[in-house]
């Protein structure tokens, strides 16, 4: 690689990144500061700091229930998605058959089509079968984009495990279940971890699908935050920001854990 010098290009790049990062930080810090401020109508910084908005949110919302539902949904979604997706990813990466391309496209569609497009018909189906407005419905709806996502993440990891390792185990007398447990799972564990962590982050921040199917007691933090922000005027904006900070902290903890294991480019759609 050549040595980089200070070119007009690099100056422009750094400048643009500073503007972008500056605005993102500005957005985040106004939320954090506003949630702890009193009478911040003008000026760069609030004059008084207070914790009263957090007390307000704690009485206004059942925070414990919100957090419980958020994590319950995320964990169940990930567990079920891996159970459904692993066998499918195994077949898709280990065998050739007619219609494989069509099948892959079918699995890709729920990832490409935005949730707001299929979310309304999906919500209607879930209402029809009395699954909506319950945690089960929220879990089912969130699984729709996550299952294909896990399949696509797992496929390259399974491809990397040579098929001859399985044949060797088979020749040594291992049964299918033993091969799965002692060969396949340990060798694809990094993939399972990557898929699991990314899915948890995605599910916690999934707004549209949860919003369309959740009821009052089955909503997650992000849906409660939207409802508060939309009904501006019903409660002080600082209290809305206090809930936003609670959501922000929940997501950031998961993101920082995730970034220890995966690279940022894995978090967006992968182009083949």
């Amino acid at each position, binding site marked *: *690689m050549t040595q*980089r010098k200070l070119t007009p*290009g*690099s100056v422009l*790049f750094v400048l*643009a990144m500073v503007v972008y990062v500056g*605005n*993102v*930080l*500005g*957005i*985040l810090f*106004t939320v954090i500061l*506003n949630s702890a401020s009193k009478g911040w109508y*003008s000026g*760069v910084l609030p004059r008084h700091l207070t914790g009263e908005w957090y007390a307000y949110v704690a009485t206004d919302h059942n925070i414990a229930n919100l957090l419980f539902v958020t994590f319950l949904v995320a964990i169940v979604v990930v567990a079920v998605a891996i159970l*459904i997706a692993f*066998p*499918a990813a*195994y*077949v898709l990466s280990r*065998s*050739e*058959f007619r219609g494989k391309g069509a*099948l892959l496209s079918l*699995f890709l569609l729920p990832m*490409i*089509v*935005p949730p*707001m*497009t*299929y979310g*309304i*018909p*999906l*919500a*209607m*189906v879930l209402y*029809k079968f009395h699954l909506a407005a319950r945690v089960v419905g929220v879990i089912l709806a969130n*699984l729709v984009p996550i*299952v*294909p996502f896990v399949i696509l993440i797992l496929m390259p990891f399974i491809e990397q495990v040579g098929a001859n390792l399985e044949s060797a185990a088979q020749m040594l007398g291992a049964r299918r279940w033993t091969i799965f447990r002692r060969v396949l799972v340990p060798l694809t564990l990094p993939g399972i971890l990557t898929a699991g962590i990314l899915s948890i982050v995605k599910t916690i*921040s999934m*707004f*549209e699908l949860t919003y*369309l199917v959740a009821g009052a007691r089955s909503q997650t933090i992000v849906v409660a*935050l*939207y409802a508060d*922000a939309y009904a501006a005027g019903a409660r002080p*904006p600082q209290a809305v*920001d206090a809930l*936003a900070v609670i959501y922000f902290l929940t*997501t950031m903890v998961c*993101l920082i854990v995730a970034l220890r294991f995966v690279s*940022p*480019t894995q*978090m*967006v*759609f992968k*182009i083949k």
Partner: protein
Amino acid sequence: MPRGLGGGRLLLLFPALAFVLLLFVYPFLYGLFLSFTNAAGSPTLANYARFFLDPWESRTIWVTLWISVPATLVNVALAVPFAVFMRHGMRGEKIVTFFLIVPLTLGTVLVSEGMLTYLGPNGWLNQLLQAIHMVGKPVRFTHNYTGVLLSLVIQGFPFAFLMILGYVSGINPDLEKASQMLGASWLQTFTRVLFPLMVPGIAICFCLNFVMAFSVFPSAMLLGEPSGPTRVIAIAAWQWAFEKFDFNVASAISMVMAVIELIVISAVLVWRNRMYRGASMVGKG
């Protein structure tokens, strides 16, 4: 590699297939069925007529395009040069990507809520712009078209950037070196080698970005004027479903939305296939 689907393999594939059919294909077909029937269940075209013949409803298509097309163009046009610049990695790469991933992870709701204060008349951005005398009085960034567009850029740019970066860093660097050795200028290397090879990636990125922007919902509600200038198609569908409880019209609007998205996706993919054949003759060996 084993060929064909034996009974065992079909069994392994079954849960995922059943899942996609039940929770993705079936709702879609159910919505299609609802959109062509009335509340009593008899076939009708009235739901589509309700949408297309009422200017208040049908203009949501143009309103949505008027927001999503510029947002997508801006995102992709910004993402390409930055991704090309960063393709071999650089110092501080981790920090930059971290700040790109943060708004993506936090999602539209939190970013919109933050933007309401940050971009508000007394927000930091207006204070800064006034302090450096770029503007005389506070600029109105929120509760209008600009607010929605800005939120789509804040969310869409990192998505486009990381996607194109993942793609462009996979292009063999020897091609660039070869082009330089043959005496090509920097610009020639970009336009004749890198860009043609990036076209498929850019096309997919454009598609996904557009489709995301076209279905914009929370930020149009929070940062825009959902009762008028930013009443996008997703808001129309949502209002029919959950305010008027008319699932038939809501389904019709959802189908219109899906069809427009599919048209754009397939148009870009067809264009990509044409370009790609040309590009592969130039580059890949």
